[in-house]
C-alpha cells in the first residue's frame, strides 16, 4: 500500500471521527431534553402534557422510520440553508445529527423510565420541584444507562457515517466505496473495515467502562 493511500486512510479516519463526534454531541444536546420530556410528560407524570407527548413521540417515530440514505437527500435544502453547502464533511453532519437525535431521545427516555418511581416519590415528599427531580434524581440515577445509550448511538453513527459518502461526505465509508469497491482495491476495503471495527470496539469498551464506574448500584471492588 502506497504512502498516499495510507495518508488517505488516516484522513478518512479523522473525517469520520470528526463527523461522528460533532453529530453525536449536537444530537445529545437535542436528544437529552427530548428524551427527558418524553419520559416525564405522559399522563399523570411530572410534566404531564399527554398531547404534546404524543405529538413529539409521533415526530420522533417519523424521523426514526425514515431510511437514513433517504433522509440525507431529502433534507439537502435544509442542510444548504444551515451550513451553506450540501456536500462535504460539514454538510454530512446535518443529516447525521437529525438521524441520531430522535434515536438518542428514545434511548434516554428508556433509561429515565427505568429509574425507580419510589425515588421520584421520595423527592416529591422532600418538596422537590419537577425540575429538581429531573436534575437531582432522574438524570443522576439514569446516568449509567444514559452512558450506555450514548455509546450505542455513537456506534450507530459510525455506521451511518459510511453512507454520507453519497453526498460527498468523506470519511472511512466513502473511502471504502470509492477505492476499495470502485477502484478494485480490496486491501483498502479491508483496512477500512478493520479501522471501523477497532473504532467500534474502542467506543464500546470506553462506554462500558464509564457506565460501570458511574453505576454505584454495583459494589465497587
Amino acid at each position: 500500500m502506497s504512502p498516499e493511500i495510507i495518508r488517505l486512510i488516516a484522513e478518512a479516519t479523522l473525517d469520520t471521527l470528526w463527523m461522528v463526534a460533532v453529530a453525536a454531541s449536537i444530537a445529545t444536546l437535542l436528544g437529552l431534553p427530548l428524551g427527558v420530556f418524553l419520559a416525564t410528560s405522559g399522563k399523570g407524570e411530572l410534566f404531564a402534557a399527554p398531547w404534546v407527548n404524543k405529538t413529539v413521540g409521533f415526530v420522533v417515530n417519523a424521523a426514526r422510520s425514515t431510511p437514513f440514505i433517504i433522509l440525507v437527500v431529502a433534507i439537502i435544502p435544509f442542510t444548504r440553508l444551515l451550513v451553506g453547502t450540501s456536500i462535504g464533511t460539514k454538510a454530512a453532519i446535518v443529516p447525521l445529527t437529525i438521524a441520531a437525535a430522535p434515536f438518542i431521545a428514545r434511548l434516554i427516555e428508556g433509561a429515565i423510565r427505568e429509574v425507580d418511581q419510589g425515588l421520584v416519590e421520595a423527592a416529591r415528599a422532600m418538596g422537590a420541584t419537577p425540575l429538581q427531580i429531573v436534575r437531582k434524581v432522574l438524570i443522576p440515577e439514569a446516568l449509567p444507562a444514559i452512558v450506555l445509550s450514548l455509546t450505542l448511538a455513537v456506534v450507530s453513527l459510525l455506521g451511518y457515517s459510511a453512507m454520507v459518502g453519497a453526498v460527498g461526505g468523506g470519511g472511512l465509508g466513502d473511502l471504502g466505496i470509492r477505492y476499495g469497491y470502485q477502484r478494485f482495491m480490496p486491501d483498502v476495503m479491508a483496512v477500512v473495515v478493520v479501522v471501523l471495527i477497532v473504532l467500534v470496539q474502542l467506543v464500546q469498551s470506553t462506554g462500558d467502562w464509564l457506565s460501570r464506574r458511574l453505576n454505584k448500584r454495583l459494589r465497587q471492588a
Partner: protein
Amino acid sequence: MSKPYTAQQFSEAVPVQASDAAIRFEAVSKTFPARGGGAAVPALADLDLAVPAGSILGVIGRSGAGKSTLIRLVNGLEKPTGGRVVVDGTEVSALDEAGLRDVRRRVGMIFQHFNLLSSRTAYDNVALPLEIGGVPQATIQSRVGPLLELVGLADKRNRYPAELSGGQKQRVGIARALATQPKVLLSDEATSALDPETTRSILDLLSSINKELGLTILLITHEMSVIRAVAKEVAVLDGGRVVEHGEVFDVFTRPRHPTTRSFLSSETGHALPPFLRERLRPDASPGSETAIRILFRGRHATDPVVSQLTRDFGLDVNILSGSVDEIAGRPFGTLVVGLKADAPTIERVLSFLTSRDLDAEVIGHVS
C-alpha cells in the same frame, strides 16, 4: 401530652383541640377514579383521625385498607376527594403545588424500600432534602454529620446504598427525613422489608427520636408487633374507615372490632397454645371442663383470683395456659382456666370476675 381518646370511643369522630393535634383528618374521603372501565375505587370514606403532637400513632390495616393513601394525604402526595387534612396548623388539602412543596419540606417521610438514591453516598443522600430546600452548603455540612451520628452511621458517610445493609439503609432514610428538622415524621411500612432484629433496632431509633426531638410520628404497618413496640396510640383501618382507635394498651387488651381481634390473634395473650386449641370444643360434653379466659389488665394484673375462686366457690381450678406480658409499659396477663361446674355456677364465676374488673369469657369446653 393529651389523651383525647379512650378505647370506648372507638370509631367515633371525636373533636380535638387544634393545638393538640399535629395531624388532623376531618371527614376525609378519597376515591380513585375508575381505570379501564372499572368502577371508581373508594380508598377512604369519611375518616376522622387526629395525631396528638409529640405522639406516635400507628395505623394498622390489611393491604388495600387505605393505609398508604392515608399517609400520603399528610404531605399532599395524594389529594382528598372530600374533607380536610390539617398538618401543624396548615390545611394541606387546600394548598397548591407550591404551597405543598413548602409543607413537604417540613414533613419527613421514610419508606418501606428506603428509596435512597443509588448514585449518592449516605452523606449526599441525607444532604439531598437540604439541597432541594436551597440550604447553603455550610449549613448542610454542619447538619448532615450530626444526623449520621444520631442514626449511628457516622463511619458510613461515604458509602453508597449498595454497600449498606437494609437496616443501615433505613437509618440513612431516617437521617434524610430528619434533615430539614421536621415536626412530623411519616413512616410508610418502614420496617416491613427488614428482619425482626433490624426491625427492633429501627423501631428503637424511632422511639428515641420521638422522645428526644419531640417529633410527632404517624406510622402505617400491617404488623401489630410494630405498633406494640413503638406506638402510643393505634388506629385500626378497615375498608377505608377507622374501626377502632385508642391507646395501645387499651386496644391490645380490650379489642372490640373483629379486624382488631384478627390482627391480635397471633399476639401474646390472645393466641392459644396449639395443644389447647385442638382440645377446645364449642359444646359441653359429660365430664368436660369449661374453659374461661381471664385477662388481667393494669393494676389487677397481679390479683390472686385463682385462690379466690377455689375458696369462695369451692371449685377446682385447672390452669390450662397463662402468660404475663407488658404492653406499652403496663403489665398484661392472660390466664385460661378449666372449671368443672354447671352453667349457673359458671355464670356466677363470670360475674364475680367482672366485678373484680377483670375481662372474662368462656372460650369453649375441654374434655
